[in-house]
């Protein structure tokens, strides 16, 4: 059978597909299945009991607080930074973009450590907070700050190239038609960036929920004051493997939902840009 000159013989193709599938199965599918198998290995009763325990519930609450504060703040930052960088020319734009990327390449343990240096007992701001009875490290504020640091660039990284490629003409046109500042943003810019923004928020949120290294450094690892990831660690290290996987399975479901949402937004975003109009 005649095959196109730009593809391989069928045997080669299937061989390559098989190897790729094997690699993916080994590294991705098996771990995915294992999480749920381990989580339910002691039955549904144990699973429900683990998730309904006070420590688990407070862990879920703390994770929600950390994500609920970091994601919106970093979202606002991302939009502001992208607006400044994409719609104007100024000296140091590239430096600014690189600086914004920094948290992306810093190890989470180091990120947590930086906040210990600032808010610790001998840190720059630590003594002031301690004197005023505010517990930053080993408390909720520390965890929120550490989460903010590691999720800092996500929305900005999505929006900056997007808004740069969209240019300024639409906004400038709106201005010449008499629109005021906020109107230009809400009615011209926002519809154009909404899929990119949503994509960035989804990634930012997933990272915030899953953060472990940085919060591990700034937290006191006290039962009842842990995030979900720290709670997984606590259960695992206390030999409650099934319990650890039970909580982990919830986070895995969230991760799968994140992937699904991401795919959906990507498809919508490509459809919108190929139509040439915001959908």
């Amino acid at each position, binding site marked *: 059978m005649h095959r196109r000159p730009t593809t391989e013989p069928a045997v080669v193709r299937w061989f390559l597909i098989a190897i790729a599938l094997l690699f993916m199965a080994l590294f991705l599918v098996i771990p995915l299945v294992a999480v749920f198998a381990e989580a339910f290995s002691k039955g549904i009763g144990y699973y429900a009991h683990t998730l309904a325990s006070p420590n688990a519930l407070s862990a879920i609450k703390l994770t929600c607080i950390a994500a609920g504060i970091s994601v919106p703040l970093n979202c606002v930052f991302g939009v502001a930074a992208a607006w400044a960088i994409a719609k104007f020319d100024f000296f140091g734009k590239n430096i600014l973009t690189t600086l914004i990327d920094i948290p992306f390449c810093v190890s989470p343990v180091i990120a947590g450590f930086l906040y210990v240096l600032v808010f610790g007992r001998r840190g720059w701001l630590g003594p002031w907070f301690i004197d005023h009875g505010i517990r930053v490290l080993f408390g909720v504020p520390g965890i929120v700050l550490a989460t903010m640091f590691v999720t800092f660039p996500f929305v900005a990284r999505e929006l900056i190239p997007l808004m740069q490629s969209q240019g300024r003409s639409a906004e400038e046109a709106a201005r010449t038609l008499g629109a005021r500042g906020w109107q230009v943003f809400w009615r011209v810019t926002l519809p154009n960036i909404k899929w990119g923004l949503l994509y960035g928020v989804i990634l930012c949120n997933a990272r915030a929920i*899953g953060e472990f290294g940085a919060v591990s450094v700034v937290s006191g690892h006290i039962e009842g004051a842990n995030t979900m*990831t720290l709670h997984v660690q606590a259960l695992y290290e206390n030999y409650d493997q099934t319990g650890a996987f039970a909580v982990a399975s919830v986070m895995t479901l969230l991760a799968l939902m994140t992937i699904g949402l991401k795919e959906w937004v990507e498809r919508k975003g490509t459809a919108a840009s190929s139509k040439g109009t915001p959908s």
Partner: protein
Amino acid sequence: MSLSRHRKVLPGFRSTLGFTLLYLGLVVLVPLAAAFAKLGGLTWAQFWHAIASPVTLAAYRLSFGASFFAALVNSVFGLLVAWVLVRYQFWGKKLMDALVDLPFALPTAVAGITLATLYAQNGWIGRWLTPFGIKISYTSLGVFVALTFIGLPFVVRTVQPVLEDFDLEIEEAAASLGANRFKTFFRVILPMIFPALLTGFALAFARALGEYGSVVFISSNIPLRTQIVPVLIMSKLEQFDYAGATALAVVMLAISFALLLAINGLQTWSVRHREHH
């Protein structure tokens, strides 16, 4: 159009730039400055002792070595996965494409305990290797496996768009000149996607270097043997050796920043490389 006319047409320059700089300063730059300030308070002896002790050197060897090989494996298999996803049709392709992002979306602690359990001696995967005397969990081999998991999406997602945009005419030209597919791949396609491949490698490497959550469970974290640099920093913090932790952290920050610049440079090269073909 002049600079000032841009600023006058569109509003919000001062406020958005001001807010951006303020937020960046508070969240990122102030903590970074604290590390460098602390570094300034160290004597050379303290600094050298921290970054050149046998324990530290062993940690560097493991971190850099395992990250390098993990990124290498991911480059080979990531390229394969990207190729298969872009060029072929098969059942489950969309699912596979979506699953590639799993290491991005999954919390590192979840990955950590899962891999540690799977590759333990009686684990689902580990039990097949135990008869051969191969131990993965609690050895440096386990560190390598965890870092491979973590870096999996980077090469795939960097190479995929380049392969998707690839001009088939070039391959047809090669075929018409008598090259078989093997030759075409290695002498025509591979050189053209090389910048993207290298970028993916660098991203996977950089990510693996700083990784903590996925590794800390599967490794036995024994100093001089199975301890990676982030775990070493954590252990110094637990012992209140802030000086040592600062020294190590600053060195790692410098390396991370250098990698960041290298990756940005690679990405620029990659774009220009494509535009010239």
